[in-house]
C-alpha cells in the first residue's frame, strides 16, 4: 500500500448509480399526461360554455323568428277574416234589403252584383245565385248559365241549410275554374227559407294574403284540413295541389313549430285557422340559421378553433417548460444525492482508514522500540557477533517502520480532512499530497507528474477535503487520458489579487470539441460502460461551492488543460 484510500470516482463499482432523474421515456409520458389533463380542464369548460351559449343564442333567435312569423300570420288572419266577413255582410245585407220576390226578379241579382263589385274595390264576386230550400237555383247571374241547377245533394247546400252560413273549400265546380262559395240562408215568414250564394275566384282570395316582408325562401299559403292548397304556394305549386307535408292541427291561436319538410330539411311552420272558414293559413320558413351581426355557427367555430389552437400552443409550450424544469430539478437532485452519497462514502472510508491506522500505530511503536533496543544493545557491545549485519537489519526494520508511519499518518490525515470546515491551505502542499494519493499506478505506467508553484503564492482559505476531492478527480482523469510515459503538469499561479489558478495539463487523448460543452453535465460520460459521468459534475459542483470556477481547454490529440480558479478568501 502506497497512498491514500483508492477511491476512483469514475469507477462505477465505487459510486452506485441510481438514476432518479426523469429519463426520456417517462418525461414524455409525464408530458403527455400534463398536456391531456390541462387540455381537458381548459378545453372542456370552453366547449361546454360555447355549446350552451350557442344553444341559448339559437333558442333566442328561434324565439325571435317565431315571434315575427307569428305576427305575420296574425296579420294575415285578420286580413283574411275581414275579407270573408265583408263578403258575408254584403250577402246578409242583400237578403235583408230585398224581399224574396225582388230577389227572384231577373234584373235584381245582376244589379246587386254590379253594385257590390263596384263597392268592393279589391275582390269581386264571380257570380251570384238564389237557391230555394229544395236546392234548385232559382235565379243566377254570372259568366255561366247555371240557372235551374239542382244543388240539393251537394255538401255545401246541406251545411248552409243547417248552419245558416257556409264558406266552402276551393273547388273547380261546373265551370272548371278554382273558386269558393259563400252562402247565406234566410228564413221567410212562411217558415220556408232560401239561400243567397256567391262565389269568389280563388285568385281573389290569394291576393288577400299579405306578402310584405317575406324573404324569398318564405312561403305563405292557405290549405284546407286535408292539405289541399287553397292559394298558390311557392314551394308546393298551384291551387288544389296537395302539399306533401303534414299540416299541424290548426287552432284560432297561432301555432309555431319545427318539423322536417318533404326533403327532410328542418323548417319552421306557423299556422292558424281562419275563423268560420275551412282555410288554414300556413307560413313555412326554412330553419333559421343565425345570420348577420350575431354569433353565427361558422364564426363560433372559427373563434373556438383559434382559442383551442392558442390554448394548445400554451399547454404544449407550458408543459414542455414544466417537464424540462422538473427534469432539470430532478437531475440536480440526483447530482446532489450522488454528491452526498459520494461524500458519505469518502467519510466512511476515512473513518475505516483512521481506525486501521490507530490500531497499527501501537504495534508499530513497539516494533520501533524493540528495534531501537536491539540497536542499543548491539551498539553497547563492541564484540557483538555479526554486529554490522544486525545493525543493517535494525536499520531496515526502522526504515520500514518509517514507511508504515507515513502511511498511517496519511490515512489519519485523509480521514480528518473529510470535514468541510475552512482552514488555511497551502495549495502546493495539498497538491503534493493528492499526487501521492494517485499511488503506484502512476509509477508503473511511467507517467511524470510535476508540480510547479509560482513563488509567493499565498495560502488560501478553503475546505481541504473538498479540494482534495477536486484535484484527485482531475488528476485521475488526466492519468486515464495519458499514454504510458505521458506527462501531467500542475501549475499554481496567482490570478489577480484575490484568486489562485491551478491548472492541470496533460498530453493525453484530448476531448472532442462537441463534448467540451457537456463535459460538466451529470451523467455525461465518454467511458461507455465504465464511467458514471459524475466525476466532473461533482468536481464542478464542489468548485462552485467553494466560490471558484472551473474551465477546460482541449483539442483532440493535443491533451487537455483544466483550470480551477479559487478565491484566496472564502465567502
Amino acid at each position, binding site marked *: 500500500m502506497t497512498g491514500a484510500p483508492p477511491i476512483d470516482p469514475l469507477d462505477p463499482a465505487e459510486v452506485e448509480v441510481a438514476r432518479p432523474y426523469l429519463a426520456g421515456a417517462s418525461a414524455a409520458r409525464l408530458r403527455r399526461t400534463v398536456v391531456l389533463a390541462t387540455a381537458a380542464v381548459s378545453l372542456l369548460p370552453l366547449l361546454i360554455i360555447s355549446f350552451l351559449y350557442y344553444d341559448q343564442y339559437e333558442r333566442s333567435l328561434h324565439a325571435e323568428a317565431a315571434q315575427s312569423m307569428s305576427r305575420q300570420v296574425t296579420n294575415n288572419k285578420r286580413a283574411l277574416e275581414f275579407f270573408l266577413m265583408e263578403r258575408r255582410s254584403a250577402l246578409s245585407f242583400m237578403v235583408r234589403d230585398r224581399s224574396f220576390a225582388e230577389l227572384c226578379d231577373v234584373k235584381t241579382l245582376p244589379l246587386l252584383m254590379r253594385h257590390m263589385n263596384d263597392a268592393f274595390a279589391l275582390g269581386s264576386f264571380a257570380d251570384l245565385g238564389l237557391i230555394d230550400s229544395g236546392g234548385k237555383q232559382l235565379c243566377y247571374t254570372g259568366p255561366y248559365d247555371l240557372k235551374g241547377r239542382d244543388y240539393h245533394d251537394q255538401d255545401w247546400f246541406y251545411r248552409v241549410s243547417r248552419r245558416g252560413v257556409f264558406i266552402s273549400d276551393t273547388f273547380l265546380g261546373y265551370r272548371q275554374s278554382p273558386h269558393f262559395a259563400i252562402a247565406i240562408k234566410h228564413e221567410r215568414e212562411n217558415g220556408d227559407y232560401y239561400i243567397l250564394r256567391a262565389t269568389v275566384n280563388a285568385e281573389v282570395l290569394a291576393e288577400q294574403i299579405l306578402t310584405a316582408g317575406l324573404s324569398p325562401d318564405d312561403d305563405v299559403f292557405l290549405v284546407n284540413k286535408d292539405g289541399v292548397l287553397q292559394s298558390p304556394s311557392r314551394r308546393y305549386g298551384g291551387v288544389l295541389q296537395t302539399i306533401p307535408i303534414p299540416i299541424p292541427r290548426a287552432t284560432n291561436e297561432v301555432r309555431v313549430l319545427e318539423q322536417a319538410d318533404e326533403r327532410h330539411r328542418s323548417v319552421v311552420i306557423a299556422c292558424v285557422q281562419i275563423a268560420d272558414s275551412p282555410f288554414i293559413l300556413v307560413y313555412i320558413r326554412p330553419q333559421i340559421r343565425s345570420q348577420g351581426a350575431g354569433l353565427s355557427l361558422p364564426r363560433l367555430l372559427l373563434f373556438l378553433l383559434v382559442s383551442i389552437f392558442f390554448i394548445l400552443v400554451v399547454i404544449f409550450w407550458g408543459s414542455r417548460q414544466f417537464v424540462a424544469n422538473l427534469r432539470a430539478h430532478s437531475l440536480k437532485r440526483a447530482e446532489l444525492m450522488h454528491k452526498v452519497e459520494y461524500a458519505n462514502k469518502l467519510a466512511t472510508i476515512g473513518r475505516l482508514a*483512521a481506525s486501521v491506522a490507530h490500531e497499527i500505530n501501537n504495534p508499530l511503536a513497539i516494533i520501533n*522500540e524493540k528495534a531501537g533496543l536491539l540497536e*542499543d544493545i548491539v551498539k553497547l557491545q563492541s564484540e557483538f557477533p555479526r554486529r554490522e549485519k544486525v545493525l543493517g537489519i535494525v536499520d531496515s526494520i526502522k526504515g520500514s517502520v518509517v514507511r508504515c508511519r507515513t502511511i498511517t499518518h496519511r490515512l489519519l490525515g485523509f480521514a480528518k480532512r473529510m470535514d468541510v470546515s475552512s482552514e488555511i491551505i497551502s495549495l502546493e502542499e495539498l497538491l503534493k499530497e493528492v499526487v501521492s494519493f494517485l499511488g503506484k499506478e502512476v509509477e508503473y505506467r511511467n507517467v511524470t507528474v510535476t508540480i510547479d508553484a509560482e513563488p509567493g503564492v499565498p495560502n488560501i482559505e478553503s475546505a481541504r477535503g473538498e479540494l482534495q476531492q477536486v484535484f484527485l478527480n482531475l488528476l485521475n482523469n488526466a492519468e486515464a487520458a495519458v499514454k504510458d510515459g505521458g506527462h501531467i503538469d500542475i501549475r499554481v499561479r496567482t490570478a489577480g489579487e484575490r484568486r489562485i489558478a491551478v491548472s492541470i495539463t496533460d498530453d493525453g487523448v484530448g476531448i472532442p470539441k462537441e463534448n467540451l460543452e457537456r463535459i460538466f453535465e451529470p451523467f455525461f460520460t465518454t467511458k461507455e460502460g465504465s464511467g458514471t459521468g459524475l466525476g466532473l459534475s461533482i468536481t464542478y459542483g464542489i468548485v462552485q461551492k467553494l466560490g471558484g470556477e472551473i474551465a477546460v481547454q482541449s483539442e483532440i490529440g493535443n491533451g487537455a488543460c483544466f483550470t480551477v480558479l479559487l478565491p484566496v478568501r472564502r465567502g
Partner: protein
Amino acid sequence: MATLRVLFVDDEEELVSTVVERLELRGIAATGVVSGEAALALIEEQPFDVVVLDVRMPGLGGLEVIKRIKQSHPDLAVLLLSGHGAKEDATTGLRLGAFDYLQKPVDLEDLIAVLHRAVAGGQCG
C-alpha cells in the same frame, strides 16, 4: 547533573518495558507503569522529574491524569504522547499544564531531548 528521573505511562506493556530499558541504557532512571491509576499512586510514593503520559489509555486517560498531577504536584513536568491527528487532545493537554506533546511513534532521541528540555524549563520556571 543529577540522574533524570522519568515515569513512563502507556497501556502497551511491551512498549513501556522497551522504552524504559532503552532510557536506562542511556543513564536515565526510568520507571514504567501501564495505567493512569498506577502512575498517580507511584507519584505519591517516589519523586520524579518528568512524567511521560500517553493520552489514550483505558481507565484513567492521560488528560485526566495530568489534571490530577497538576493539582497534587504543580511543579512536576508532564510530557504528552498523542496519536497522530489528535491535535485537539494535545492542545487540551497543553492548556492543562503539559510541557509539550509528541506524536507517536516517537523517536527515542527526540524524546530524550524533550525530557532534558522539560527539566531545564521546569528549573527555570
